[in-house]
Structures are given as C-alpha cells and as structure tokens.
C-alpha cells in the first residue's frame, strides 16, 4: 500500500488545495454562489480558506489571533485530519458529519453559513483524499 501524497509544507498544501478546488468539475459546475470563509483547524496547523463565487481566492496559513476573519470553523485533532487525507478514508474519517458524530471534530461559529454551502464544502473536504492531509 502506497502512502498518500502529502504536501511537504503548509504553504504547498494550501496551493495544492486551492488548485484542486478551483479545477474541480463539481465545484465549478455548482459553485456559482459558493462564497464564504472558514477556519480549518488541524490543531498543529490552521488555515483560513476564503471562497468567492466558487473560487478559492486566498488561504491564510497559521493566522494570528485577530489576523483574518472567518464565518465558521471545522476543528479536529491532527490525527483525525490525517484520516481524511487517506485515499480511501477509514469509517468515521470519511466526512465532517461522520467525524463530528463519532470522532473529535467540532463544527463551530455561524453554522448556518456552513449549511448554506454544504454541498461544495463537502466536496472540498473530500478533495483531501487527493490533496492529502492538511497536517
């Protein structure tokens, strides 16, 4: 079994994630109104991901306490996010609902914004199976 491809640095992961999302056929077909910003908190690393009209416009790596505003947060341990980065994730590491109900993931902040963009966020998180773990 080959190890999943991992970006060697947070900056390279951010670039790979941006590219994967901005060229993903599903997000580009259905993301016309996909506009939001969220914190991906992987404990050892954090990212603020900003999306406008289906395109990732900026990813801030390890923002300071008041650096970048965001609307909601998806938080989990590094171990949980590493599970998301497998090509075929094990059970309960296969989505934000699964990991929130059965593992240590937390969905915080303005969850309504998450729900308004749920289809595209779900797809973006699944792109970790290709891009690799954010941590």
């Amino acid at each position, binding site marked *: 079994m080959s190890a999943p491809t991992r970006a060697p640095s947070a900056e390279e992961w951010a670039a790979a994630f941006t590219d994967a999302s901005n060229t993903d056929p599903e997000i580009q077909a259905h993301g016309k109104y996909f506009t939001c910003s969220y914190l991906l908190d992987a404990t050892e690393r954090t990212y603020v991901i900003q999306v406008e009209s289906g395109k990732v416009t900026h990813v801030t790596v390890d923002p300071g306490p008041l650096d970048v505003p965001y609307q909601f947060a998806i938080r989990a341990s590094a171990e949980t996010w590493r599970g998301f980065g497998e090509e075929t994730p094990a059970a309960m590491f296969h*989505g934000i609902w699964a990991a929130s109900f*059965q593992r240590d993931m937390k969905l915080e902040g303005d969850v309504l914004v998450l729900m308004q963009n*749920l289809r595209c966020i779900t797809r973006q998180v699944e792109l970790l199976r290709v891009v690799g773990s954010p941590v």
Partner: protein
Amino acid sequence: MSNSKISPVTGHYVSVDVDGLEYKVFYLENGTGQPILCQHTAGCHNHQWRGLLEDEEITANYRVIAYDLPRHGKSDPPENTEWWKEEYQLSAEHYSNFIIALADALELENPIFMGSSFGGNVALQLALRRPDRFAGVLSVEGADYSPGFYLDWWQHPHANAAQVCASGTWDLMAPQSPEADRWKTWFYYTQGSEAFKGDLHFYSVDHDLRGRLGEIDGEKCPVVMMTGEYDYLTTPEDSERTANAITNGSFIYMPAIGHFPMSENHAVFRTYLIQALELLQAKREKPAAALA
C-alpha cells in the same frame, strides 16, 4: 433496432385507511413467492430498492414490494385532512399501524418486512407489536434508540433544504460504494426535505425501545439485523447490542458499506441480504426454543 427494454417491475396504487386517515399509496413490485415488504429510509422513496426490484435471483423466490410511505415519492399526504395546517411528526404507533394496514390491504400472507434506517427501527416496532402478522423482520441500519438527527437544519428557511438534506446524509455512505449510485441516492434526498424532519421525529425521538427489547417475541417473529461499517448514525456496535438483547436475534456486520446499503451498493448488499434471508428461514424452521 432499439436497445430499449421494458423492466419487469410494475407500479400500482392501493388505498389504505388507517387511524382515521385515508392514503393513496404507490408501490413497485416484481417477483413471485413469499412477499418482502420494503421500507425506504427517512425523507426518501422506493427507488432506493431499484437494485433489489430487478434482482433476478431474489425475485425468482420472493415477491419484492417497495412502497412509498405517505408524503414520500408518489404517495400523497392524507386525502381527508388539512395536513398543511399541522406539523408532520411521525409516531411509532401510526407508522406501525400504517405498515400493518398496507400488508392487510395487499392481502399479504406470511410477509417478511425489511426496512432501512427509520425503516430498520420500525422493523423492531413491528416485531414487538405484531409478531403474528410477519414471518420475520430484517432491520437494516436499525437500533433500539437512535438520537441526534431530529434537527432544524433540514427545514431551515435560510438554507437550501434540498441540498442540506442530500449533502447532510452524503457522509452516511461509504466511499467504496459506486459514485453513480451514491449520487442517485443524493438526488433522491433532494426530493424529500419537507418529510425528512417529520420522519426523524420517529427515528430520533419517538422510537425508543431501550429496556423493551426483551418483550419482542423473536421465536414467533425472528429478527435479523444488518449494519454497515460506515454508518455514523446507527453504528454496527449499536445494532449488534440491540440484536443481542432480542430473543433469537441475529446481527450481520457489513464491511465497506454505509447507511443506505440497498441504494448505494446493491451488488454488495445483496450478498448479505441472501445470507439474512437464509438465516431468517432457518430460524423459522428451527426456532431457538426447539433446539434448547
């Protein structure tokens, strides 16, 4: 020359009167033999059973009947009430009474009941309430109690309810299941958002058989439970615990599949279903009490 083919699956409507309500119920069927009455999951409809309905091996021995619960698919809400003036909250009693009335309306003899998720939970209710009416129940992705999914998000007016219901249940499926079948299941879920939350009133609130599983007459109505590895709502551990508390109950663990097994991956599900049907028939031929 056309490659078109007409499926052997046929559709019918049947009128069902239950608890003072009049329903016009749509069902699909195919096959001959002992009836298997199939219940779809909450907020969905009978196309989840499309693979089973056209499964030549199973329909050679069983009459597969997959209905739409009222308010789902092609089964309308009640004909004789102003249902739009009330909040829909499905109860264990009405749900069970409806299924029994449907079995009576179709004059089914010795039917097996099979349901998934909130259908798996009502399978347990039927075994408890009317063990005389069913030859056995197959509880797929079911448990004695399944809290946590009666959420306002399913109908929140500031979000796209169709997408919230469909993408909110997406993670219930296994990544190994064929993408096209997962997307069909997602598509069905965009169609049922108005009923979904009311269905979940049964699933997460009114259905609670904790401490009552010992009352199920599993000799008269054998119970076989089956749950997929990727089900985050009713985990395999939940179903196994439930089956172990039922007299003559059995549990089948289904690896690499999720909460909508018949819809997300019939090819895998059918292998476990055949096993479950064989187990059910063996239980009926040799009840545990007779072996003791």
